[in-house]
């Protein structure tokens, strides 16, 4: 006789019934759990959902992180990464499987932002975005500077006051943006793109003052990095304090350690530049007057003082012009020009002095030997009894030499 297994003592379920019961039990018991484990079999589905397994030495757990949730992650999970996952257990009745539905995911050990930073940095570096060969030269004398920062932060105040102190004639154009919190990176990227579309800007400063890593985060995001990289206008990054390095710094054509430093880098110091111009002017004067002196000597030989008159007038006029322009700025230089004019006046006098008439006017006379009408330059040309003619400024006289000494 066949043995009857008596099971009446136990409740009887259909597969569906027991599965539903398991589902309810599990889902009610584990509706919010923190689970620590290592990621393996990580897959990003084309739909954007993440599928992976959380495991440790002895067990594993299937996990899913839906697109809507994983979009908020700063980093991309990778196999082997130790993480802390928060979520709930869900059961699929149809397949009889359970999994962890992940709400949030945090890397264990180093911070999430740190991982995100390193990941993006590695990716963009591999793409060549940090290559020196990509960096555009930053102009030495920009006339217009575009600034991408918050209109209310310390950064804009610092930049404006330093640029106005160093080189006040520069035109500053601010494109106000949000520099922290969600959406800031997109605004910054858009601002850089818009400046490129506008075009009439020589260089851009993109940045903000110091803050926490989270505050600086928009400058570590890919959209900001890409916008800097595709900018035709050279970009100076100016984020946070000296110690803060952001992705924006690596992509930028020039990294300034702070917004104030960016202002120092972007424009030269006007006073120093003026000093350089003065030096050039001095050279210009020296060369020009040397040339005139040289010509003057030639002219002296030709005894044609009139030819020199015109350029002398010109150089004097220009000296006066320069006198006026250097004005208050450079007293010593003014003196230099005055000396120049004085020198030119002396030069003029010397030329006049070469005119023999002017010499006679001062009381000198010319002595001619009567027999051959030569000018007497030394007494040895004469012997006693020679007739001489004396030529004065006005009139002549003749006489005879009594004695030669």
């Amino acid at each position, binding site marked *: 006789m066949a043995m009857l297994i008596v099971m009446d003592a136990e409740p009887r379920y259909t597969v569906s019934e027991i599965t539903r019961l398991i589902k309810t039990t599990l889902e009610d018991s584990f509706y919010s759990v923190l689970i620590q484990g290592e990621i393996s079999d990580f897959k990003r589905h084309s739909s954007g959902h993440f599928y992976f397994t959380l495991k440790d030495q002895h067990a594993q757990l299937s996990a899913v992180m839906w697109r809507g949730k994983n979009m908020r992650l700063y980093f991309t999970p990778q196999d082997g990464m130790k993480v802390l996952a928060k979520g709930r257990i869900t059961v699929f009745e149809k397949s009889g499987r359970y999994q962890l539905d992940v709400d949030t995911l945090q890397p264990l050990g180093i911070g999430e932002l740190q991982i995100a930073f390193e990941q993006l940095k590695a990716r963009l570096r591999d793409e060549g975005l940090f290559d020196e060969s990509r960096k555009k030269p930053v102009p030495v004398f920009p006339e217009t500077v575009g600034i991408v920062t918050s209109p209310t932060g310390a950064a804009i105040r610092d930049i404006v006051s330093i640029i106005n102190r160093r080189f006040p004639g520069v035109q500053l*154009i601010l494109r106000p943006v949000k520099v922290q919190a969600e959406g800031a990176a997109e605004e910054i990227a858009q601002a850089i793109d818009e400046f490129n579309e506008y075009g009439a800007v020589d260089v851009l400063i993109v940045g903000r003052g110091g803050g926490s890593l989270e505050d600086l985060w928009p400058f570590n995001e890919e959209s900001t990095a890409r916008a800097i990289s595709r900018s035709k206008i050279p970009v100076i990054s100016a984020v946070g304090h000296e110690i803060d390095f952001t992705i924006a710094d690596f992509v930028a054509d020039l990294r300034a350690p702070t917004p104030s430093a960016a202002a120092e880098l972007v424009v030269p110091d006007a006073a120093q530049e003026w000093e350089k111009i003065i030096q050039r002017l001095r050279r210009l004067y020296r060369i020009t007057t040397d040339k005139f002196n040289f010509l003057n000597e030639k002219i002296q030989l030709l005894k044609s003082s009139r030819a020199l008159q015109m350029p002398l007038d010109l150089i004097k006029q220009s000296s006066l012009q320069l006198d006026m322009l250097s004005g208050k700025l450079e007293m010593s230089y003014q003196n230099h020009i005055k000396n120049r004019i004085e020198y030119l006046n002396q030069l003029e006098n010397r030329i006049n002095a070469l005119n023999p008439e002017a010499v006679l006017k001062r009381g000198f006379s010319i002595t001619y030997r009567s027999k051959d009408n030569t000018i007497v330059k030394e007494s040895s040309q004469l012997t006693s009894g020679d007739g001489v003619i004396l030529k004065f400024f006005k009139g002549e006289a003749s006489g005879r030499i009594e004695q030669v000494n």
Partner: protein
Amino acid sequence: MPTQKFEDALKRLEEIISNLEQGDIPLDETVKMFQEGITLAKLCKDKLQSAEKEIQKIIKDTNGEFQLTILS
């Protein structure tokens, strides 16, 4: 010349000086270059001394046009 950039003016000034230093330049040419040099220096000085400019704010309006206003 009013639109000439500071950088270009400075370069030209440098060029004039080295031309004068090197070449055997005739008198009238020398005078011309000297005067150009003075004009360039004056231009540079004007740029260096120009007054503070008001900061502008740029915004792209809904028609996609750029609007520049004085930042208050």
